[in-house]
């Protein structure tokens, strides 16, 4: 596939499956989980809440982490953040 999302090959240090919780549940899960991975590591949050895909980038910016992007699957999103500090 020519337009394969490079994020799909990323090996996250941790994956949080927050599907089935509503906003701001997945964001809170993300906040908790980022503290458990090493600085420089990648966290993947899986969320079925549409708001989370929009919230994690602004959250990452505020917290000083790097939003790497997201992959939209059918009915959920995989959102990737690199812990920077």
């Amino acid at each position: 596939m020519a337009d394969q999302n490079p994020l799909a090959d990323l090996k996250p240090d941790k994956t949080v499956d927050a599907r089935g919780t509503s906003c701001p549940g997945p964001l809170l899960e993300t906040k908790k989980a980022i503290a458990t991975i090493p600085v420089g590591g990648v966290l993947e949050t899986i969320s079925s809440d549409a708001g989370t895909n929009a919230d994690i980038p602004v959250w990452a910016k505020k917290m000083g982490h790097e939003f790497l992007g997201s992959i939209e699957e059918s009915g959920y999103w995989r959102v990737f953040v690199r812990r920077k500090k």
Partner: protein
Amino acid sequence: MLYSGTVDKLLPAAILASGAVAMDMAVDIFVTFYGIHAFSKQAIRTNKTFSKDFEEMVPMMTQKMREKNIPSWYDMLAEAKKSGNVKIHACSTACDMLDVKKEDLDPLVDDVVGVGNYFAEAAESKVTLFI
């Protein structure tokens, strides 16, 4: 400022508090008037009252909340307090009017304070909401 005691306002207040915690912000909730009763030990877990404006929507809302696994406003606030810096203050005048003492309130409530306390916090805050 949480003035209301019906679930249609308590739930958004709890969602906003959790969101603020996720964004690493400190939250002070100043509970007054109709809100006081909602935080009393007897009512806090059993309060199912909705504003009259939304009465006909209650069965649908209750069902959707269950289907979508949305926690109760009480559980959401308790979780927000556990994972962040959330303080809940009860208004002394409203407590006095309703004959409610600190010990009648759920332990989620940190203290009973005056409106001066509200303004001291509000003046230092970037976001203030009246719910």
